[in-house]
């Protein structure tokens, strides 16, 4: 009896471990099929590409959020860091006239720096990430607004515009960037010490520390990485709307958290895979797109997205509790 039990475990491990993600994937497929029947436009190459483009920013932010949440934390400052990096970059590039590539570099540095500062405070002062990033959320946006004095910048150079609107063999640049981000994230989580430590800290911080892991270093890296992805998103947004503003990105952190949750990552840390988050972001993108095509009012859309978030996590929880 013991042997058959063990055998069964072995065969089922893949499905057992990725159950949530597999069902999210199936849900995504079903959703696409339904929308194909309900609307004429959904299943067209042009629309599908546009779903990907619309999902790219949230996907990228959610990838960073996945690291944070796996490590047992949360980052509420994501939207604000996006605004900080995009607004200052736009001002420097358009109003001061610096080289656009230098501007992009500055956006990335701003993202990493604000993330690192938060990580440092979380790790060294030992304040819950919720509080630190809640504070960060208003501080970063405050700095951004103050810096540009609340005004917007229009008309960006071509290099930036290309990143937002250009394409390679038909694939929009932001989608390509998102794909790279996901490959890199997968690699980091699965193939590096940093990734393993991220899971370890979220799974059991004490045991991780007693294994000689420097918790502070890993935490600072995690929040910096999340900040870096905010910087990248800031650049892409600027390119796409051909403008920068200190008020973009409001609520982006919540979309990112939602994608992570739908993707099956445990909110208490230690568990999750990056592809789940990608699926989560795509589910949200497809639903938004479908509702737009069906001309559902934005108010209803909010309600529906909310139901999907709670529903997806509930189904998962109910199934787990049954066991």
């Amino acid at each position, binding site marked *: 009896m013991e042997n058959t039990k063990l055998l069964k475990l072995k065969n089922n491990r893949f499905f057992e471990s990725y159950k949530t993600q597999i069902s999210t994937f199936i849900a995504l497929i079903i959703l696409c099929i339904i929308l194909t029947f309900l609307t004429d436009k959904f299943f067209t190459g042009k629309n599908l590409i546009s779903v990907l483009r619309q999902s790219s920013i949230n996907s990228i932010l959610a990838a960073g959020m996945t690291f944070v949440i796996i490590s047992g934390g949360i980052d509420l400052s994501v939207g604000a860091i996006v605004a900080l990096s995009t607004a200052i970059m736009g001002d420097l590039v358009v109003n001061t006239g610096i080289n656009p590539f230098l501007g992009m570099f500055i956006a990335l540095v701003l993202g990493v720096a604000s993330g690192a500062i938060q990580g440092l405070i979380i790790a060294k002062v030992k304040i819950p990430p919720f509080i630190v990033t809640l504070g960060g959320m208003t501080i970063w946006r405050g700095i951004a607004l103050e810096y540009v004095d609340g005004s917007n910048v229009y008309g960006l150079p071509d290099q930036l515009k290309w990143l937002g609107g250009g394409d390679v063999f038909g694939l929009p640049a932001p989608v390509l960037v998102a794909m790279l981000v996901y490959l890199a994230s997968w690699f980091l989580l699965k193939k590096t010490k940093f990734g393993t430590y991220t899971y*370890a800290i979220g799974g059991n911080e004490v045991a991780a520390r007693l294994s000689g892991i420097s918790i502070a270093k890993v935490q600072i890296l995690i929040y910096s990485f999340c900040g870096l992805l905010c910087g990248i998103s800031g650049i892409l947004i600027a390119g796409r709307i051909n403008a920068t503003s200190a008020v973009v990105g409001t609520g982006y952190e919540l979309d990112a958290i939602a994608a992570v949750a739908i993707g099956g990552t445990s909110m208490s840390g230690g568990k999750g895979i990056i592809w789940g988050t990608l699926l989560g972001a795509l589910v949200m993108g497809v639903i938004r797109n479908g509702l737009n095509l069906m001309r559902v009012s934005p108010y209803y859309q909010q309600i529906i997205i909310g139901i999907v978030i709670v529903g997806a996590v509930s189904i998962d929880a109910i199934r787990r509790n049954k066991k």
Partner: protein
Amino acid sequence: MKEKTVNIGDVIFEMENVTKKFPGVVALDNIQFNLKAGEVHVLLGENGAGKSTLIKTMTGAHKPTEGTIKVNGEVVHIEDPIHAQELGIGAVYQEFNLVPFLDVAQNVFLGKEPKKNGVIDREYMIKRTKEVLNMVGSDIDPTVMVESLGVASQQMVEIAKALNADSKILILDEPSAVLTEKEINKLFEVIERLVKKGVGVVYISHRLEEINVIADRVTVLRDGQYIETVKVEKNNIDKNELVRLMVGRQLDDFFPKHDVVPGEEILRVENLSTHKLLKNISFSLKQGEILGIGGLVGAGRTELVKAIFGAEPADSGKIVVKGKEVTIRTPKEGILNRIGLAPEDRKLEGLVQILEIDKNINMASLDKVSNGPFINEQKFNSVAADMSEKLKVKTPSLKQLVCNLSGGNQQKVVLSKWLACESEILILDEPTRGIDVGAKVEVYSLMNDLAKAGKAIIMVSSELPELIAMSDRILVMHEGSISGELKKGDYSQEKILKLAAGEA
């Protein structure tokens, strides 16, 4: 339900042919079990034998797939824990179900707050809590916060809570695991008191010593199967027989200690002190030696080993490794000096339970299997495979999550972790706590093998037989300092206890 008078000796709870199946597993297979009023019935079995499933079936947390359950002779279908409580079945689990920031009375009445004129009748609550605490011979103040109580007192509050719910059947799940020797004796007094009043106690334990003192009958489970119910004579149980029933084979020797000729001195500690507790601790340790550290809970044993490892660095004193004075302020520095710590609490401190076995094994030595930040998967896998094979970790796959392993196997994963980073000084804090008998012997054998291979071992243990049998030398601690050192051939339980109490 109609009230029946129950006399001592009446069967108050019965399980007939109870089977519980989970998908792919038969957790309980045709179990026979009954409990009489006024007896202590011990459930004995290794981890995974089905003890917890059996309890959960009693308390309504699981429903049996087949079979009948009777309470006071009547067939019942226990719906959920609340229903179980109404039937007079109360349980005290290893992990307490108390709310730390409520007071004792509020905890005892949690969910059943008495009302008077629509508001909570605080006066009655306190009065009644005092009564039930009296029943267990405890004088805890009902108005203190549970959080401020020690473990033993919290356990009393749990028992009082069960009694307040009018439990006639009291299930105690390894109650002694968290208690000191003294507290255990107190607990036994309480149990005897309750038994005399006609309460039937189901007592779960691994410790044969305790069964000797407390049990009237013992039911042995193995691999989910009912093995046998034995009536036992107090203070005269046949330990070997019980172990044989439990593991299904004879264990000739509990403690297969091999003597190793100690080698060079590998660790010396001089005047290690902390502001909080430790006072001028000095000792030395040789290769191949197993140094036992005895003492009561709170004597500073865990603090001492954590100071040596760097988890809670000392405030003053010297640590000398292989003749060189070293600074150890963090676990990382401890590891660099080839020290490994297997902490007391595997769940909270030892392993990342929700990660795979191979990751846990490599956790402290990822540097060794990585090129810069990148993990070399081949090396990673081969270290995990080597170590788990060497230490005989039983698992279908190294990708299994650690939380699915038994306590004994988890301890082997902890040891694998330290061997993977080539630790030469292994500190084992309560190495066999919560591990079943069969696996204990395996851990002892491993300790022998490690000592033979020249590793130096420090073993902190509260189990005197283990301490005496496995140590080459014993240090006893009392209130933060070493109260005595005993040489092999010179130990006895009495001597250790006296030193631990600071009386020698």
